[in-house]
């Protein structure tokens, strides 16, 4: 073996390394060969998952293959047939949301309808909507907002209720801090996460001023019979452990034209949804006819989630 001084520590000799000493080059070569062998030996799906690309760089063909992969994963994990789509944003549509604070009675129907629709983990519990109970005398006061209220009946005459979920900011702080670009704003304004690309650093959770992002600390517990089989790749598909998730305006529903689940369950009709670019839509009428406001407007996040008093 020829002498390679750079492979040795000073003072090392052939005797010190022993007869079967591996040079660094030999070691790296064999590691590389065995890795290549492992990759060649494993299935094409595993190989594709290992060498996956960012969602936005996928060709339509590759998107299709990823959908198949997720469908197979769901089949294995839950033993159920699912339909999963990657329906893109409709042209000429930017989604907006408005919530009538004068109507909301704090019944939390929306919280659980959201969990049912979007396949959140049941245990450990993850909920995307948080309803804050606030005193009418104090007005909107996040310091004393109480999410753990539980009276016999709602509404309580001295309190009002402020449901908070993702505000779908036009200037989202969460997407800017993501070190790997795993979260971004779609053309229709929905801020989405690629769960295959998220590394779970939770920078976005620190950046979000609304507490709208949630982390899968444990393996998500979702009973197969509770799985909603109507999935979207950027929305409600079952998440792995160690990724962040958030409200997507029910992307699997709204891109197909339907209202989000929270809108349809709300017993008082406080939740309004529609296309901001359509002047005839409910949301546009609310913006033009009612006095609306956004949460923490001073932060210049420019939410597309508005609150208003309908009375």
């Amino acid at each position, binding site marked *: 073996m020829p002498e390679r001084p750079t492979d040795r520590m000073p003072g090392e000799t052939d005797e010190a390394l022993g007869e079967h000493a591996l040079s660094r080059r030999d070691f790296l070569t064999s590691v590389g060969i065995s890795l290549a062998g492992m990759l060649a030996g494993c299935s094409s799906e595993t190989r594709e998952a290992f060498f996956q690309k960012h969602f936005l760089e996928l060709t339509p063909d590759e998107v299709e293959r990823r959908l198949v992969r997720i469908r197979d994963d769901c089949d294995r994990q839950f033993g159920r047939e699912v339909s999963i789509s990657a329906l893109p944003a409709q042209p000429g549509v930017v989604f907006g949301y408005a919530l009538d604070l004068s109507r909301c009675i704090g019944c939390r129907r929306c919280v659980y309808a959201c969990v049912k629709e979007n396949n959140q983990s049941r245990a450990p519990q993850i909920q995307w909507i948080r309803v804050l109970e606030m005193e009418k005398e104090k007005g909107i006061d996040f310091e004393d907002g109480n999410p*753990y209220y539980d009276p016999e009946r709602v509404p309580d005459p001295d309190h009002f209720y402020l449901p908070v979920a993702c505000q779908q900011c036009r200037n989202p702080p969460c997407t800017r801090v993501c070190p790997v670009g795993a979260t971004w704003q779609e053309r229709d304004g929905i801020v989405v996460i690629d769960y295959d690309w998220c590394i779970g650093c939770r920078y976005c959770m620190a950046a979000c001023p609304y507490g709208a992002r949630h982390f899968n600390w444990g393996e998500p517990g979702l009973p197969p019979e509770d799985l909603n089989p109507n999935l979207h790749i950027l929305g409600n598909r079952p998440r792995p452990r160690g990724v962040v998730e958030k409200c997507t305006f029910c992307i699997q529903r*709204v891109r197909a034209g339907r209202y989000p689940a929270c809108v349809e369950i709300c017993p008082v009709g406080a939740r309004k949804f529609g296309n901001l670019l359509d002047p005839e839509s*409910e949301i546009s009428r609310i913006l033009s006819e009612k006095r609306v406001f956004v949460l923490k407007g001073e932060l210049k996040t420019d939410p597309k989630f508005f609150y208003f008093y309908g009375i």
Partner: protein
Amino acid sequence: MRNDASEEPEHGEGAEDAAPEFSIARSNALLPLLVLFAVTVLAVVLVIVRAKPFVPTVGVAADRSFAPSDFPALFAKDEALVGIQGGDPGSPSVLFPVPAPPFTEGLFPCMECHATFPPDRERRPLEAMHTDIVLHHDEEHRWCLDCHDADDRNQLRLASGVLVPFTESYRLCGQCHGTQYRDWRSGIHGKRTGYWNGAKRYMLCVHCHNPHSPRFASLQPLPPPMRPQFLHREVGTASVETKGGPGAGEAH
């Protein structure tokens, strides 16, 4: 050793350059430091041993988690699309496809009974029939025949004398509640289900507001979220040791 330590400062003062090396073991500071350390350890141990269970300062304990499957009656049915003819994206909104009015079982059509006796137009408390109806709707100025037509009980009667069927009761409500009527027609007031860009299903005013007592009835709220103090119980159930934060080492 103690003597040595107590003599040290004098020794140092006497010959500053003779003892340049400082040793904490031989200085006076050792004993106070040891005492301080012992007290701290004791305090920490006491805090851990005597720790009381978490008591929330605001709200309920919230130490149990609930899921939609705990409320099958609320979430099993999905009536959002009932009565809606498809959701063709971009199709013009279909106006007012409302569900049927919520009649009390067996009461409609009203004329089945009311045709058998002449109408009594005198204002009075109801005693013979409909005693369950308690009017809390501007009851000082109003009674049955302001809205119900005396001669045709199957219909409602506008102030102008025009008769409208129960399926169009919103026209009657809209006589007084004009702003709500306007908002309801444009979709701001009241609930809509279906398609944001297509066919929608409206509710009638009376689906949410009992016309005889229109204030929205209170509801029992669904349970609050689990407090983070208790979440680790559930993390354990998922058979992964995650307490203290797993990071994302195994994210796939």
